[in-house]
């Protein structure tokens, strides 16, 4: 018998147009804490979804061997049955139910046809002791902080007799004390023989807890580092995470002409009253004419929130600080005012809040600037077709016709429609949020080329991206964000993948 609890051999997984995983090998020994690291989009979450049965057997290639047996999970319950428990980044608890109800939700203890609540409470008490959570089982989830909720999730996993616990960024939303507690708990579970896979962006935590670290990049296993051999250090991890060279996929920009400052933020702070905290903190930022500003940082670092707070504040943050455009102080109260002022924002989630998926290409392109195809509120539908054709051609949108429903286009073409929609508003500042997420290399190159053309025409671009290669390959200046604030501004001479990662993981 091998002493591996889990072996994933040659796992490959393809989505339409994108190869998310190719020949990944990933092995976890019994009773070890194995950290999985990599940039956003490196394939970590996809790999875990393959493991837990979210992507059922047959939709991927390769073998999963768990406790010496080849497994074929058709759904999540199959992986739970053999003892794999997964805790997602987004907690899946019911806020209005009690702790004990949550722990046994979907796995209710029964006496005959009825739920045995007494037994449930007794067992829940035991589990709470195990995870060192000092609350009564009758407490409502919503009365607990995020850190304690995380512990309830672990208790829930333990209630199903897990042998392998998977945690996806468990400390992303926790403060330092809670994170510390959680790490201590994981070590204790390890001593009880429970193996653990942890996905994390916080390298310091990874170093403090991991027995092994596997680095994924672009859907491939780069290396597995062994802590007992002293191989694990921040430098080594970062180098492996970002290690690729910047290839020629970033077209060179000729004759740069950087002009006067057109956007200036000072002490810019945004308070989200729903979350009850500042999502953007004291940001100082300036954008010059004809410049691409890269905003780097990990997910949740406040990049998107910063963009939204500039773009007419659709989430109704409470804003503080000063925003100037062309030297004039601006207060934009609605997205329509931002558009009028010359700002355009291509969203990160093009399907969720970027496009009208059921509508066709031409009406998506015109949607943010219907004034451009109407007189006195009456549309000129022929003009719309003309404009649509222009953008379809100039942005190389591949579709059978302008009447094609946008929901049926590929990711890259959807992104171009989204770009076309915003270019039609005639912006001076174009904010691109993850402009190339989930699209293939060819379409990426086309989007980069378009960006360069726009800059040459005198537009300015703010590019938010998790992909370091892209940030380094395209930007003229880089701001690195973490926890809502700008941790550093780098010139292209200073910026390397390592310096960015260091600032971003602070």
């Amino acid at each position, binding site marked *: 018998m091998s002493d591996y609890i889990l072996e994933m051999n040659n796992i490959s997984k393809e989505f339409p147009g994108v190869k998310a995983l190719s020949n990944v090998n990933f092995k976890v020994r019994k009773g070890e804490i194995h950290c999985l690291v990599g940039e956003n989009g490196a394939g970590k979450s996809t790999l875990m979804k393959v493991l837990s049965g979210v992507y059922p057997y047959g939709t991927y290639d390769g073998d999963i061997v768990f406790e010496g047996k080849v497994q074929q999970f058709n759904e999540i319950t199959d992986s739970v049955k053999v003892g794999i428990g997964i805790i997602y980044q987004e907690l899946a608890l019911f806020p209005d139910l009690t702790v004990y109800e949550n722990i046994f939700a979907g796995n209710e203890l029964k006496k005959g046809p009825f739920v045995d609540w007494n037994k449930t409470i007794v067992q829940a008490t035991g589990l709470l002791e195990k995870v060192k959570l000092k609350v009564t089982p009758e407490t409502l989830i919503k009365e607990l902080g995020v850190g304690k909720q995380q512990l309830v999730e672990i208790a829930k996993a333990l209630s199903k007799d897990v042998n392998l616990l998977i945690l996806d960024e468990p400390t992303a939303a926790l403060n330092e004390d809670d994170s510390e507690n959680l790490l201590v708990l994981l070590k204790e579970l390890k001593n009880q023989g429970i193996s653990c896979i942890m996905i994390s962006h916080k390298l310091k935590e990874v170093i403090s807890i991991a027995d092994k670290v596997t680095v994924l990049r672009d859907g491939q296993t780069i290396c597995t580092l062994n802590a007992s051999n002293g191989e694990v250090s921040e430098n080594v991890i970062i180098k492996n995470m970002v290690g690729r060279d910047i290839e020629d996929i970033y077209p060179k920009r000729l004759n740069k002409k950087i002009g006067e400052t057109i956007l200036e933020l000072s002490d810019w702070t945004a308070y989200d009253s729903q979350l009850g905290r500042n999502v953007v903190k004291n940001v100082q930022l300036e954008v010059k004419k004809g410049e691409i500003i890269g905003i780097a940082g990990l997910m949740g670092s406040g990049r998107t929130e910063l963009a939204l707070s500039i*773009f*007419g504040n*659709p989430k109704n943050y409470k804003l503080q600080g000063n925003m100037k455009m062309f030297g004039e102080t601006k207060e934009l109260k*609605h*997205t*329509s005012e*931002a*558009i*009028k002022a010359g700002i355009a*924002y291509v*969203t990160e989630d093009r399907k*969720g*809040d*970027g*496009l*009208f*998926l*059921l*509508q066709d290409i031409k*009406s998506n392109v*015109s*949607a*943010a600037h*219907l*004034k451009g195809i*109407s007189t006195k*509120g*009456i*549309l000129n*539908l*022929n003009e719309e*077709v*003309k404009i649509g054709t222009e953008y379809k051609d100039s942005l190389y949108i591949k579709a059978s016709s302008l009447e094609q*429903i946008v*929901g*049926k286009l590929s990711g890259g073409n959807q992104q171009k429609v989204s770009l076309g*929609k915003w270019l039609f*508003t005639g912006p001076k500042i174009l904010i691109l949020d993850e402009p190339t997420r989930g699209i293939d290399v060819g379409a990426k190159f086309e989007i980069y080329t378009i960006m360069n053309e726009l800059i040459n025409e005198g537009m300015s671009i703010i590019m938010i991206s998790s992909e370091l290669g892209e940030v380094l390959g395209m930007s003229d200046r880089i701001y690195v964000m973490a926890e809502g604030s700008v941790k550093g501004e780098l010139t292209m001479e200073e910026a390397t993948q390592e310096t960015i990662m260091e600032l971003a993981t602070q």
Partner: protein
Amino acid sequence: MNFFKEAKALVKANIRDYGMYIALIVIMLTFTIMTNGLFMSSRNISNLLDSAGYIAVLAVGMTLVIVIRHIDLSVGFLAGFLGAIAAIFLTQMGVSVWITIPVILIFGALIGLVNGVLVAKIGIPSFVATLAGMLIFRGALLQVTEKTGTIIIKDDQFNAIGNGFIPSIMQINGLHLLTLLVGLIGILLFVYNEISNRRNKMTYGFEVMSSGLFSAKLVLISAIIGYITWILAGYNGLSWTVIIMIVVVVIYHFLSSKTVLGRHIYAVGSNPEAAHLSGINVQKITYIVFGSMGMLAALSGILFTSRLQSATTTAGTLFELDAIAAAYVGGVSSAGGVGKVTGAIIGAIVMASLSSGMNLLGVGISYQYMIRGGVLAGAVIFDVMTRKQRA
């Protein structure tokens, strides 16, 4: 051969839009055969369209409400209540009909606006907000008719809205001349509009239908308009109700398909977040759509009250559900962003045809409800299936 290929491709691409027209034709033909032609008689068609009027105008407004992912349950009793208010204005207060009607329409729009504010500004789910409205207007209707009971209206001008016909000028072979003229003008306008659209597209250099298929389309639709006109001209001619229906459809069809406002409505329904990020004021659009719904409810109340020539204590009962059913039969989708005003009218006519045809056949009311329910379910199933095919 090419002609049929193109026609087939056209039908296939637009099966969702054409589906209900085909369904309507099938239903009408079936009833015509089963009643030995009685169904298609001038008198029956005229009655059928008049009885569809007050639901059809509600269905038009309801379609837009459903397009922006909401619902309005208050419109039935709102129509009943405002109809009663109109009756009180005309009888007890002696207000002229020319003042009564605009005032009632404005009342309706204002009440609709209140619904819009509750939904968009305060954030109450539209189902609950308008359910409350439904109860309130039901009570209000009882309150204003409590002392008098049914209010009988003796104003001929007002009653003509629901019962009268346009003047005939003269009869030719027993046919209503002005109706024929209106039909002819309708056909000419339609043909002119189509041809100028086509020419316009050609000057832009766009692809257009082949001239063979285009002529076939013109002839077919002109023939349908002509046939309906001819049928109506054989009885009393066009009723004022039908004229009002046509005006409402034309205005709403234009607003929804040819204006910035219409585009914004569909954008909000299609993806509210994306609409907001595209600079569209989602709240304002919600106010406008609910305001228009209120106004159409008032119009529906006027049509119904005038048709009965009186305001009753139960006027408006279940109108909202008939309107919702008509909107769904007409192809609106509860997922938002999809549904046409013209569909709503066809939906209302389908439902009215079912009632009328089954009445002629002497089908019991119990079966009538079941069959109408079945048709509603069938229409939505068809809608879901064709959407799956396209996705």
